[in-house]
């Protein structure tokens, strides 16, 4: 089955450039503004959109994304509303891939089968679930693949050559390489180490490899994108959003533009990169 993710990466490969992947939290700072922001991303240069599913206990996230999740929850965000957000986005855009990223519990409580049906029909293309390693593939990965959704796995610096085949076995869409051992928003990765790691993963798979964690500036985005099929930026965008809010954490007239402008400048960085050697 071909998803929007597969199509998008095939197009980018033809154009000889890497993908710019954005991450923002669903419902941050409120559901309506969040939809406006996400709608603005493709025209600002986002090739793939990751949307965070808010969770009270995001164990792999740093302070910025933790706070974004809490803002969204405070604004009444739920998993159901996250799917509505995707549905809203799909009214105007049927090409940009949407990947939901988060933790397993809200999906488990929603009901795995029902979630997969609803996510597919809302226009979701892939899932990244931080706390579902290959050892727990029966839970969601295998049912998601059956439902026609990509299950995108995280590979990390601790995933050695012995373990990589297990991590890649049921991965589809792309591989998300977490460039550092650490949480989101931590220090930037060294681009030569990333280059080696991406090459190592590519020896095991034909899937595109995107790199995330620690990318904040157009320069780093360019450096990383020149070694990989895509660069993911999350915390920097979430911070730009947060800095545009008023003292009570509510959206202002500047909020959508603040995210769109940073997206555009990061996208320029990525587009300036030479596509990684295949």
């Amino acid at each position, binding site marked *: 089955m071909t998803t929007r993710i597969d199509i998008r990466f095939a197009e980018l490969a033809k154009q000889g450039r890497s993908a710019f992947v954005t991450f923002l939290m669903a419902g941050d700072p409120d559901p309506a503004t969040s939809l406006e922001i996400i709608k603005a991303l493709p025209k600002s240069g986002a090739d793939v959109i990751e949307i965070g599913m*808010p*969770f*009270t*206990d*995001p*164990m*792999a*996230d*740093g*302070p910025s994304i*933790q706070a974004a999740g809490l803002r969204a*929850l405070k604004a009444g965000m*739920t*998993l*159901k509303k996250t799917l509505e957000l995707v549905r809203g986005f799909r009214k105007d855009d049927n090409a940009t891939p949407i990947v939901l990223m988060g*933790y*397993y*519990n*809200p*999906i*488990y*409580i*929603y009901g795995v089968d029902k979630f997969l049906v609803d996510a597919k029909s809302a226009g979701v293309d892939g899932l990244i679930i*931080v*706390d*579902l*390693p*290959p*050892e*727990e593939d029966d839970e969601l990965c295998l049912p998601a693949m059956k439902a026609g959704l990509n299950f995108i*796995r*995280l*590979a*990390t*610096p*601790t*995933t*050695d050559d012995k*373990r990589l085949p297990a*991590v890649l076995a049921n991965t589809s869409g792309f591989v998300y390489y*977490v460039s550092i*051992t*650490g*949480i989101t928003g*931590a220090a930037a990765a060294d681009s030569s180490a990333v280059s080696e790691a991406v090459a190592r993963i590519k020896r095991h798979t034909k899937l595109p490899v995107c790199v995330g964690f620690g990318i904040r500036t157009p320069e780093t985005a360019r450096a990383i994108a020149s070694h990989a099929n895509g660069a993911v930026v999350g915390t920097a965008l979430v911070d730009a959003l947060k800095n545009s809010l008023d003292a009570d954490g509510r959206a202002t007239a500047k909020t959508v533009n603040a995210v769109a402008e940073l997206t555009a400048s990061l996208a320029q960085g990525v587009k300036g990169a030479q596509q990684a050697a295949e």
Partner: protein
Amino acid sequence: MNIAKPNSYRSGPDERGHFGIFGGRFVAETLMPLILDLEKAYTAAKADPAFQAEMNGYLKNYVGRPSPLYFAERLTEHLGGAKIYLKREELNHTGSHKVNNVLGQIMLARRMGKKRIIAETGAGQHGVATATLCARFGLECVVYMGAVDVERQQPNVIRMEMLGAKVVPVQSGTRTLKDAMNEALRDWVTNVHNTFYCIGTVAGPHPYPTLVRDFQSIIGNETKAQMQEVEGRLPDSLVACIGGGSNAMGLFHPFLDDPSVEIFGVEAAGHGLTQLHAASIAGGRPGVLHGNRTYLLMDADGQIQDAHSISAGLDYPGIGPEHSWLHEIGRVNYLSATDDEALAAFQLLSKLEGIIPALEPAHAIAKVMELAPKRAKDHLMVVNLSGRGDKDVPQVGDILRGKSK
């Protein structure tokens, strides 16, 4: 419950860390290789007689084991029913049962060549035990503790610092034990190369629930032998408090296949089960958090809810996965005690036996006050007195003088 009874209640978990549907390994990929290493190291250590011999030496001469099984004569007379024995885990070095598990994990960390130890703590008992053994073995120690708990358990914070540990107050989320665990996991993901995460309870990803249980089972094994010696038979019932459930699992596990032994776990009912509480089994349902599937307090969207208990050590919205399984299968009976009931028990035991219990086991004593009078005088009831109350003296003193609630 329509679940077939197993041949043994003691054979779990399966090779993937499952107790029925509970348990598992729900962790980030960064941690997965380390968790597999830990499992291997633990399997090798268990099979190594030198590991056990070294542990036994420290348990005897450093921890002060075996802990006594004490007949609480005046409490028994006062309640007028079952004959009540206290398993005196509060007499261990560091003042609680936590040291049993920490010793085992620190010895594993040394075998694995890890020089930096992190831990989460609620009441501070696990933090103190970890800081103590890190001092003893010359290891770096960082303890994550919710900012709310840092306030209400000051004596333990000071102790940890005196022992050379760094105590990090956690300001995220509800600023209690669950957030301390999140922060410890974030540290672990960041420093995975040199760091051993010493988990304090029978929760977290496999193999933690199993190895913590195994290290704590010395409580039940000793109890069995001691009761045989004084009464010539098995006890009739066991009672222990439950936050994550390590002291309870340690007492219960060796008795699970003795069908004559009634087993009671006591969760913290806080202000009452219809209000803020920390009773995951009474008020929660199965979900996935902190590496395992287990009973959790959460809302309809799967968001984790705030727990509340007067006792920082029980103030956690989950419970160890093996307890969830023992509940579903009906082997252990899970009850709950409120803040007020625990406070009353705290005072009763202090005045009748000259033993000031920690607020955590005061919850177990509170249920003993209900259960014991309904039992015959030859009924042998064992309560795990899992910790001493020194750390709670300032907090309880303030409450009793009406200064805070």
